């Protein structure tokens, strides 16, 4: 990096000690990231024993329990399914809408403003809106689905083991597809127009232009969008907390919700083990993604 800059002076900051500038940030990182990380490891080898009213060392018990616990595997599956399906749907829908509204016309600017609104609603409140809209008796969505005959008159969404997760995912897709749209539109707007003009002159079909020009040129923007959305999808807890509380049964437990739920059942060690597992997975996958997708900050 330093070689690229042709200033008469080397960056004037370099002689300085970095400590005073970065100390508050590093302190925060240590106190709120490093210490919790090691505390989690500590907790994962301990468990609260009600008979003795104390947190006792239990060795690998929590980890053995983790890998033999059907509910854990179920919640891992839910988290993976939720993350990948939402990411895919939001990316495809987002790209479609982004291509649609990528224009200088002021009318499309208004649409972009409208789309920002969903993103700032607290997810718990977005969940509450859909809780009303998906209510089994008076909800709008079951009523619509029933009147077009997609579900039977006695069916519900959030109490149905197979539909409940989609009932949660629809909220995520509603709230966060605009995230993809806005980022992709920003990416599309920043592309130079010359390659597209010459492609059209050369007689390229629209799909070819998209495939060979737009997608490769948007590579960095798409990578950033996938990274940030993926992180937030993986740790999602608000929607399931509000909409289903993990139910019916354990059908919509995500890793974060299951961890929280074990914590409230005073299985502190086990809850911490689940959250630690989820943390390690995202740190490895996230950093590998940054490395291989060549995302640069």
């Amino acid at each position, binding site marked *: 990096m330093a070689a690229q800059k042709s200033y008469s002076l080397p960056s004037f900051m370099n002689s300085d000690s970095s400590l005073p500038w970065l100390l508050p940030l590093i302190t925060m990182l240590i106190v709120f990231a490093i210490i919790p990380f090691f505390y989690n490891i500590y907790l994962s080898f301990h468990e609260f024993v009600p008979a003795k009213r104390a947190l006792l060392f239990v060795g690998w018990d929590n980890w053995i329990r983790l890998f033999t616990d059907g509910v854990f595997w179920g919640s891992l599956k839910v988290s993976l399914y939720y993350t990948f399906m939402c990411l895919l749907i939001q990316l495809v829908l987002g790209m479609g809408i982004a291509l649609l509204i990528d224009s200088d016309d002021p009318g499309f600017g208004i649409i972009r403003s409208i789309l920002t609104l969903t993103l700032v609603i607290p997810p718990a409140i977005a969940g509450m809106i859909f809780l009303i809209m998906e209510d089994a008796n008076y909800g709008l969505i079951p009523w619509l689905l029933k009147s077009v005959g997609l579900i039977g008159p006695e069916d519900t969404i959030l109490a149905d083991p197979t539909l409940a997760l989609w009932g949660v995912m629809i909220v995520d897709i509603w709230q966060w597809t605009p995230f993809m749209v806005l980022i992709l539109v920003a990416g599309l707007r920043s592309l130079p127009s010359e390659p597209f003009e010459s492609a059209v002159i050369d007689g390229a079909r629209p799909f070819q232009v998209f495939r060979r020009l737009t997608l490769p040129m948007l590579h960095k923007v798409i990578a950033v969008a996938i990274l940030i959305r993926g992180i937030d999808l993986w740790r999602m807890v608000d929607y399931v907390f509000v909409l289903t509380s993990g139910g019916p049964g354990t059908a919509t437990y995500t890793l*974060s919700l299951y961890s929280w739920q074990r914590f409230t059942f005073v299985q502190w060690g086990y809850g911490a083990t689940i959250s630690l597992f989820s943390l390690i997975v995202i740190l490895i996958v996230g950093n590998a993604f940054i490395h291989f997708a060549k995302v640069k900050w």
Partner: protein
Amino acid sequence: MIRKILAFSIALIFIFPIFFLITSSFKNNIDLFSIPPKLFLFNIDFSAYERVFGFSKLLKFDPSYGELYLTSRILDSLIVGIGSSSLTLIIGIYAGYYISRANFKYKNFLIMSILSARMMPLISIAIPLYFVYEKINLLDTYVGLILIHTFINLPLAVLLLKSFFDEVPKQIDENAFIDGASKIKILHKLIIPCAKGGIAVTFILSIIFSWTEFICALMIGQMKIKTIPIQASIMKTIPSWDMMAAFTTISIIPVFIMILAVRKHFVRGLTLGTVKE
């Protein structure tokens, strides 16, 4: 033209749940629980708002509905939001400026650490911090929640501010430095005024993300402190949709105003400073 119609109908789909929420807050219970749902033609009824603010005498004696109860939830969110965003900004400005200007050995490692902090599932911070806070009496205090929200917003703030400082020409600080100004003075007198737009954006985005955060607020706030999302999730157990709708309508209007004010930089904030609009 077809494209415009299509685009506007998509926008309508996305805005519909918000419309539904706001109209629900003005419906009475008959219209709220009608099949088919009444979307447009309903009797406008302000009683939900009266109850949210505790004006209605009927519910005044119930502590779970009372006047102070719901308005103090909004106050909780404001205190935590403004407190944590101010702290985030103070830490973020110095760190962001230094990262923007200096080349140091562990710069890349530091940026990756900041990004890794952004990746952490919040539950994996909240569980250990619950025990730490319990020991140092920070559970259920504003300070405790402000600190954790500061941490949550720091990656956004540092990287976003760095990207705004990157846009301020380096010659400005270098010339001032040659003229003998101290580095801290350069930052305060020259750079911050140049980047004040970016700083305002960072501040507002931090408030918004603190306003919407759920799981840490749930675990660290216990009895005394409940931010808006927590209160909304509690209201699920009270079978009063109109009150819930009224309360959430009041609580999302300020965020809507804030976001429309910084809409131009919103994408940049969402992508931690990498994608500019």
